C-alpha cells in the first residue's frame, strides 16, 4: 500500500542512491560534483520531511552553497585534462565493491534488530510549538555550548590550515 509519504520517501531514496552511484562512477569530476549537488538537494528535502528544517537549511547553505562550490573551484583550478585518458579505477576497485556489498549486508542485517531508546521531550508538537530553529538553538547553546565552541575553534584552525597549505611558498 503505497501512501504518499512512502512514495515520497521511495522517490528520494531512489534518486539519492541512483545519483550516488552515478557520482562515484563519472570520469569527469565536474559531472560528479554536479550530480552531488542534486543529491544534496534531495537529502535536504528528506530532512524537511523529517521535521528538521534547520538542518535542511544548513544542508543547502553549507553543503550545496559552500562545500560543493569549493569543490568546483578546486576542480577548475587544477588542470585535469590528463584525467580524460587516465585509468579511472584504482587497483582496489574489486576489493572496494566486495567490501561495500558485504558492509551493506552486515549493516542491513544488523539494523533490522535496531530498537529505539526512550523518547525524548522534543516531539513534533513541541517543535511546532517553539519552531525548529529555536528548539535547536536552545539545546545547542545550553547543553552543547562547549562542543559548539570547540567546533568554532576547529573551523578557525581549518581556515588557517587551508590558507597555509594552499599558499604558494615564495622563496625569499
Amino acid at each position, binding site marked *: 500500500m503505497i501512501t504518499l509519504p512512502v512514495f515520497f520517501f521511495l522517490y528520494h531514496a531512489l534518486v539519492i542512491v541512483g545519483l550516488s552511484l552515478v557520482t562515484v562512477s563519472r570520469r569527469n569530476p565536474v559531472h560528479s560534483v554536479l550530480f552531488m549537488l542534486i543529491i544534496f538537494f534531495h537529502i535536504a528535502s528528506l530532512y524537511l520531511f523529517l521535521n528538521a528544517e534547520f538542518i535542511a537549511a544548513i544542508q543547502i547553505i553549507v553543503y550545496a552553497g559552500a562545500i560543493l562550490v569549493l569543490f568546483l573551484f578546486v576542480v577548475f583550478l587544477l588542470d585535469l585534462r590528463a584525467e580524460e585518458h587516465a585509468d579511472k579505477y584504482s*587497483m*582496489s576497485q574489486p576489493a572496494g565493491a566486495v*567490501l561495500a556489498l558485504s558492509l551493506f549486508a*552486515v549493516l542491513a542485517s544488523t539494523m533490522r534488530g535496531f530498537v529505539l531508546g526512550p523518547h525524548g521531550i522534543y516531539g513534533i508538537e513541541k517543535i511546532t510549538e517553539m519552531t525548529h530553529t529555536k528548539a535547536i538553538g536552545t539545546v545547542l547553546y545550553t547543553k552543547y555550548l562547549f562542543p559548539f565552541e570547540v567546533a568554532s575553534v576547529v573551523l578557525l584552525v581549518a581556515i588557517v590550515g587551508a590558507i597555509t597549505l594552499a599558499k604558494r611558498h615564495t622563496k625569499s
Partner: protein
Amino acid sequence: MSAYLLIPFLPLFAFFVNILFGRNFIKGQAHWIAVPAVTVSCLVSWVIALKMFMSHDPQIINEDLYTWISSGGFRASVGFLIDQLTAVMLIVVTTVSMLVHIYSIGYMHGEKGYYRFFSFLSLFTFSMLMLVMANNILQLYFGWEAVGLCSYFLIGYYYEKKSASDAGKKAFIVNRFGDFGFGLGIIMIFLTLGTVHYAEVFGSIGTLTGQGIVVLGFQMDVITLIALLLFCGAVGKSAQLPLHVWLPDAMEGPTPVSALIHAATMVTAGVFMVARFSPIFNLSPVAMAVVAVTGAFTAIFAGSIALVQRDIKRIIAYSTCSQLGYMFLACGVGAYGAGIFHLYTHAFFKALLFLGAGSVMHAMGGELDIFKMGGLKKKLPYTYWTFLIATLSISGFPLLAGFISKDEILFLAFASGTTVGKFVWVVGVITAVLTAFYSFRVFYLTFHGEFRSDIEEMKKHAVEHGHDPHHLLHEAPWTMRIPLLLLAFGAVTAGWIGIPAALGGHNKFAHFMEPVVGHPEVHAGHATEYILMALAIAIFIGGLLFARHMYITNRDLADKMAKKFSFAHYLLWNKYFIDELYHFTIIRPTMWVSKSFIVGFSDGKIIEGIVNGVPRAIGQISGFIRHVQNGLVHRYATVMGFAFLAIVAIAFIWR
C-alpha cells in the same frame, strides 16, 4: 726499627732510586747507588748470621711489621723470621748478589739499559730477601712471585731479541704452572689449619696426621696433598722435572743474571722452601719419596743433556738443574741440612762458573759455542784459574766445597736406610760421573787445545755490532776479576764449616741447622763413609780423565761416540724433546681451542649466531612485513575495511 730491616729495604731503596731517576739522571752511574746498598745489606746479613753462628742459643727474630691481608678468619702479615735457615740464605743471597753487582759494573758497562739492569738486580735482591725472611707462607709467596718477575725482566733484558723476550715469558708462565700448585697448597693449609704463619702452621700440622680428603674423586692424605702442592711450586721455581724447560732458555739473560738468579739464588728457592716446610714434608713419607725421586731424576736427566750441548751457558744451566736435583734428593731423604749445605756451596762455585763463562763471553765477543773456543788459558789467566777451581769444586775434588756437600748428600742418602734412599744414591753416583765429565768437557774445550775461531772475523763482527773490538781475547777489567777471585775463595773454603766428623771435622753446619730442619737418620758408620768418599774421588778422577781423553788427547773420539750412539746423541742433543712435547700437548691445543673452537665456533657461530641471528630474523620478518606499508592509501583503506569487517564478523560469532 731493627737493623735487620735494612737487609731487604736497602736494595728496594736502590731500586726505586735507579728506576725513577736512572733514565734521565743517573744513567751510567747506577752502580753507585745499587752496589753500596747491597754491600751494606750484605754486611748486616753477615753480622746477624755470624752472631747466630757463634752463639750457643741463637736468638731467633720473628716479628710482624703490619697485617697485610685480613679477611674473615684469614690473616697474613708482612713479617720477618730470621732463624738459622734464613741466616744461611741471607749470606748466600746478599754475598752473591753483592759480587754480581760488582761484576756487572764491568760486564754491563756501556749498555743502553745500564740503570735498568741495576734497578732490577736490586729489586731481585729485595724480593729474594723477602722470600727467605718471610715469617708466613703468603709473604713467601710474595717473594716467590717477585723473584719470578725480576727473573722475567732480567731474562728479557735484551727485549728487542725475540728469543730473549720469549724466554722471559716462558720462564714466567712455566713458573706459574708451579705456583698454581703452590697457591692451592697455601689455600689448603689455611683451610685445614686456619693460619698461614709458619710458627702456627708447624705447631699444629701434627693434628692433621691421618686425616683424609677427597680431591677430584681421589682419597688422599691431607698432609701428603699439602706437601705435594707446595712441592709443585718448588718444582717450577727450581727447574725440576717436568718444569725444567724454562731454565736453559733463561740463559738469554745477561750472564751476571744467570749467575745470580739462575744459579745461586732464585732457583734454589725451591730447596729453601722444602727445607722451610720440612715439618710438613717429614709427616708424609709419600711426599718425601716424590721429592727425592724427582730430584734424582732431574739430576741425571739434566746431567745427561749437559753431556752433548755446545752452548757454554746452557751446559752450566743444565748443570744447575742437575745440582738442584741433588739438593732435592737430599731433602727427600730427610737430609735437609745437607741440601741447604749444598745450596750454600753450590751458590759459590756455580756463580763462579757463570761469571767465568761471562768473562769468556766478554773476551769472545758474545760467542757461546764452546767448539769455537779453545786455548783461552793464556789469554785469560784469571778466568782460567778461577774457572778451574769452580770446575774442580763442582766435580768433587777432595776437600773443595762441592766435594764436601755432595759427599754429605750421597752419604746421607745411602745411610738413610730406605729403598728410596738407596735408589737415589745410585742415581746420584751416576750423576756425579756425568757431572765430572761434562764440567771438564767445558773446561777443556774452552781453555785448552787450539783456538778454533777466526779472530779477524770476530773483530769485524764486533765492529759491525757497535762493540769495542779491543775487549776481544783480553782479560776482563778489575771489577769483573775481583768477584771471580772472591767466589773462587768461596768455592774452595765454603765447605769447610761442614767438614764431616769422618774427616775429623765437626760438621758445624749440620748442627747449626738442626733446630730448624732436624737431623736425618743415619744407618751407617764412618767406615761406609770412607768407602763412599773413596768412590767419589774415583768418580772424580774417572770423569776428569775421560773428558781429557776425549777432548784433548784423542779429538776424534767425541765424534765417533756421537756416531756410534747416534740415537742417544740425537735424543740428548734435542733435550729429550720435552719442549716439543709441551708445544704439541699444551701450546698447540690451547691455541687451537682459542682460534678454531672458541673464536671460530662457540663464540663466533653459536653465541654470535644467536645474538646476531635473532635480530637478523626479526629484520627479515619486518622487511617482509614492510611491504604491506606501501604508501598506497587505497591499500590501507581496503585493509582497514576488511579488518573492520573481520571484527564485526568476530563480534557476530562471539555474541
